């Protein structure tokens, strides 16, 4: 029982099928209270569906899930009292003011009196929206709208907060502010379940799950995920990216190549041994090289590598990003 109580979210073979696709395929998850769980994956991986299933606004086709100890099918309403959910799209009343939006959600959640006044003041300060409280939500900037949406989902102090790509389309400064707020919530013990397409955000999570075509490919701490990548990473900036890529692919000890803008990321068995040959080979072909260095693989490289591996294993029928670069 105590073990069960430690889990904020637990799923067993959670599956959701639509007409033609399996959006979420036999998902097994166990998320402890107080975690920041990051769900990453390309578009169409099933992230939003997973969150909707967990928020009990979509019914699973198969399997089961409990959120805050309640079953998503049988006790949907109990779950809704305990969670906050911020959908991907702008989800406030644009023609109502900041204050009216907050008041409306406070009304619906029956947060009244002193508590409401204090909490709204606190949330406004928290989201730095106090001076905009009479402005119509539609007239706020994208970042402010997201913060207001977050404030509205926090009005009833949920135990678990689901955020579906909360920072998509938000400028970097607002994004940082937003994450400061999330860190604050984390410190207060709120469980955070966040889907994001941004790998730097994934790095901030206590655990991340990589979803691809409805499957959870990997689910671990960011460090562990990065360790999954085989080999060491050499980064370089060649003059002729395309030729360099084709050439490097044939070299000994090269495990995988990813392009990253102008940069070439080369995974090799040993950076120490391969770095100089790599440079020599390219120069001899007349390709100039700058910025050659060994670097730590980031989440991004790890995920691309993992997804490619999955595609290479042929366990997919939808080659989403086999040659994404």
């Amino acid at each position, binding site marked *: 029982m105590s073990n069960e109580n430690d889990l904020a979210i637990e799923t067993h073979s959670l599956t959701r099928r639509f007409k033609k696709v399996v959006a979420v395929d036999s998902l097994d998850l166990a998320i402890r209270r107080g975690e920041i769980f990051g769900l990453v994956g390309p578009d169409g991986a099933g992230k939003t569906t997973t969150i909707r299933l967990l928020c*009990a606004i979509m019914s699973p086709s198969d399997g089961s899930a409990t959120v805050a100890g309640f079953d998503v099918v049988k006790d949907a309403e109990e779950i*809704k009292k305990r*969670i906050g959910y911020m959908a991907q799209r702008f989800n406030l009343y644009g023609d*109502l003011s900041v204050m009216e939006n907050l008041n409306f959600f406070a009304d*619906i959640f029956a947060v009244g009196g002193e508590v409401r006044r204090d909490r709204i003041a606190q949330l406004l300060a928290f989201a730095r929206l106090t001076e905009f409280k009479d402005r119509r939500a539609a007239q706020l900037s994208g970042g402010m709208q997201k913060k207001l949406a977050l404030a509205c989902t926090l009005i009833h102090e949920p135990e678990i907060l689901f955020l579906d790509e909360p920072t998509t389309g938000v400028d970097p400064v607002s994004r940082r502010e937003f994450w400061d707020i999330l860190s604050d919530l984390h410190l207060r013990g709120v469980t955070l379940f966040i889907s994001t397409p941004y790998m730097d955000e994934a790095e901030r999570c206590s655990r991340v799950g990589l979803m691809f075509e409805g499957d959870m490919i990997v689910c671990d701490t960011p460090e562990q995920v990065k360790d999954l990548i085989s080999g060491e990473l050499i980064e370089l900036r060649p003059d002729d990216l395309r030729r360099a890529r084709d050439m490097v692919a044939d070299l000994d000890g090269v495990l995988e190549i990813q392009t990253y803008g102008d940069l070439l990321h080369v995974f090799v068995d040993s950076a120490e041994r391969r770095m100089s040959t790599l440079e020599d080979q390219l120069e001899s072909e007349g390709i100039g090289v700058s910025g050659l260095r060994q670097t730590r693989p980031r989440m991004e490289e790890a995920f691309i590598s993992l997804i490619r591996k999955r595609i290479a294993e042929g366990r997919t029928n939808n080659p989403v990003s086999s040659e994404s670069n």
Partner: protein
Amino acid sequence: MWRRIANVIVKDFQQFLRDKVLLVFVVVGPTAQLLMMGQATASETQHLATAIVDQDRTSDSRALIVALDNLETLDVTHYLDSAEQIDNLLDRGEVSVAVVIPSGFAATLASPPDRATVQVLVDGSSLLAGYAALGAAQGAIASVGGEVTLERTQPAIMSSPAARPLELLPTARFNPELSHSYYLLPSQLSLIVLIVTLLVSSVGIVRERETGTLEQLMVTPLRRIELIVAKATLPTLVALVDFLAMLAITVWAFGLPIRGSLALLLFVTLVFIVAQQTWGLVISAVSATQQQAVMLIFMMGILSVAFSGYLVAVENMPVVMQWASAFFPIRYYLSMLRAIMLKGASFVHIRTQLSALVLLGAASMVVSVRNFQKRLD
């Protein structure tokens, strides 16, 4: 429960009052439409140019001409010597009506067993004007001649004044002036209520879906039934207020009577609005965007015009269409509206229609409420 419903209603009102476009649509649109329609139909059937062929030339025949000229519907513009000239004038559209008073008119009037016959020719290509002229002429002829038989011939297009004279005296009850506004304005009124109800109700839901707030509401303790009740309140009130305003216009500006009970009229309207809302729910359920919803409402409006008995009496439709019309609340509503306003029908007279409307409303409500889930799938 009621508190949460009230919260949503208050919020909906705030939004509604700030939605200028919707406000204009709901307030200005119907008012302008009704005023224009009322004006147009009134003027179309007023001061119709009339030609007179007086072959009798007696004081009685002159009295009849004066009576005809005094009608608001008719203006005597031509005095002709022979009936042959009529066709020409009608063909050229210079007159819409021609009245032939045969010689011996006064004499037959004076000897009761005989029946005086007056021939009225109307331009049948303008149906409304034709009916109005016929109706008006009958009144005048009846008042002058007492027992006068109106000889109604085929419209002028057939142009054979000698065609078999029909010995009939049509009398329009409930609408003695055969005023087209009497017929048209209640229909328009019912359509306005229909469109306003559908628009406000489905836009209210679809907009929340479009902006994602519906999804947000799904993760609140707000129950499904609370959401439906709350979402139905604003459209009901708006449609009812609109109805009252439009009713006031038809009564005060165009002189339509409310011969039956106003309370009954309001009750029937309320039932209609609620029944119609279930269609609003259906439209909201299948529309992803407000644009789609508006298109469906437009389609619904057209179908409703067809099935309401506005243009064609339901009884005259093909059987299949009659069945289909059974699913459109306006069919029952419009006939009740006309009955109460124009005939002074009481509850007893309309109970069949009312039961049908209630039944239809209840059935479709069950279906649409069950389909309106607090889930996305």
